[in-house]
């Protein structure tokens, strides 16, 4: 069991803070390929069909595919740029504080010289913060695009990282900021994250009121569920577990035990169903294509649970 870090209460409060009242539902998973986006698009459609104004944010900017599953195109591009540090060599005293601050070790300080940006910079701007001489200026670098399309009774916000760029987190932040500017137009934000527990997932879940952690029954699924629930515990975000492909190898007991260990529970269980594959092929969410299918009924029930839980 990995040791769980304790964050200062003010950090948790800052993480949970929002400048609007529209609730945010996160859909995430520790393991990849467990059905996050499938759950997210079906849930978004289910909530839209209940009459709610839903904004679906596909925050998996390294591999966005919610638009594919919904069969809608990405429209209204807006470029995303991040600030790269440029050193004012006249101001810089060569103190080296920026070198220590850079977690990516992207800066190098030759003896008697000024810092050089040699490695990958993700635009975190820690160097700007620590510089006592205010010697850094921002140079914009384009790293991706965000899109906004309205179709299928919902609004889809997607982000896409520019090929060869690595700054996914910058695109995730810009994507959320774009969607949140229109917060009063929506009853709910549904954020579909990338898999894992890395910073893109953390940025995507920032401000979430409730998170659904999707998993499969395999030992790896259980292991990665443990990781994602630990992350949610660190930021004190309420969670529920959704089991996908329930007939696949593995044991439900293990998943229930992991959930119980994190004081949560399995909220929904999706059977293994070929109809989901058919819905992929047709680029139509299952809940719209076969509303009476057993999986579709689980999605509908989950939609009602979310609406009740978030009081929308």
């Amino acid at each position, binding site marked *: 069991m990995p040791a769980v870090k304790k964050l200062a209460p003010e950090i948790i409060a800052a993480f949970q803070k929002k400048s609007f009242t529209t609730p945010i539902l996160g859909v995430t998973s520790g393991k990849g390929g467990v059905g996050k986006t499938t759950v997210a698009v079906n849930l978004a459609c289910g909530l839209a069909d209940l009459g709610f104004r839903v904004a679906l944010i596909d925050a998996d900017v390294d591999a966005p595919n919610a638009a594919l599953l919904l069969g809608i195109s990405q429209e209204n591009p807006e470029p995303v740029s991040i600030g790269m540090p440029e050193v004012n060599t006249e101001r810089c005293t060569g103190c080296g504080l920026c070198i220590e601050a850079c977690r990516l070790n992207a800066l*190098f300080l030759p003896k008697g010289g000024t810092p050089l940006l*040699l490695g990958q910079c993700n635009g975190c701007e820690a160097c700007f913060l620590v510089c006592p001489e205010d010697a850094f200026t921002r140079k914009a670098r384009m790293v991706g695009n965000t899109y906004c399309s309205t179709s299928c009774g919902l609004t889809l916000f997607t982000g896409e990282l520019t090929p060869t760029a690595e700054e996914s987190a910058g695109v995730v932040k810009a994507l959320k900021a774009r969607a949140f500017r229109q917060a009063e137009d929506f009853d709910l934000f549904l954020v579909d994250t990338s898999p894992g527990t890395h910073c893109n997932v953390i940025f995507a879940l920032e401000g979430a009121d409730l998170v659904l952690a999707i998993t499969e029954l395999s030992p790896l699924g259980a292991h990665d569920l443990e990781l994602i629930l630990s992350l949610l515990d660190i930021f004190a975000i309420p969670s529920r577990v959704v089991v996908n492909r329930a007939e696949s190898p593995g044991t439900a007991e293990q998943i229930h035990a992991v959930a119980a260990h994190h004081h949560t529970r399995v909220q929904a269980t999706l059977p293994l169903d070929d109809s989901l594959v058919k819905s992929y092929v047709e680029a139509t969410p299952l809940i719209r294509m076969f509303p009476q299918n057993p999986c579709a009924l689980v999605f509908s029930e989950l939609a009602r649970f979310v609406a009740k839980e978030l009081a929308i």
Partner: protein
Amino acid sequence: MKLCITATGKNLSARVDPRFGRAPYFLLVDTETLSCEAVANPASATGQGAGIKAAQILTDRGVAAVLTGTVGPNAVEALQAAGIKTYEGVDPDDTAQDAINKFKQGKFSASSAVSPRGGCGQGLGFGRKDGRGGGWGRCRP
């Protein structure tokens, strides 16, 4: 000259580590006296930018040259900016002492990206002249 050898252990009998940024230890050796100082490499376990961080550590310690297996492109730039010569191509089966012996025999030449002339010519000259050194190196276990 203060020479850094990337190594798997803390002294000259340790095997060399052919990785520059990820080597667990840097052995800082005075090539005249053969006195050796071991520096644990905090960059070995870093997520990103290990080569740049390693170059920073060597720069701050006043190292003149690095003897290792290969140096990545970012670290090459950093070492170049710091004026540290790079000698690549150590045999991973060699101990640090073996590598020093070969270095003193001039069996390594400074990487062209760092020093296109200088080290290369000098190194070869040494190697041809001092045949005994090579034999000695092989005799050691």
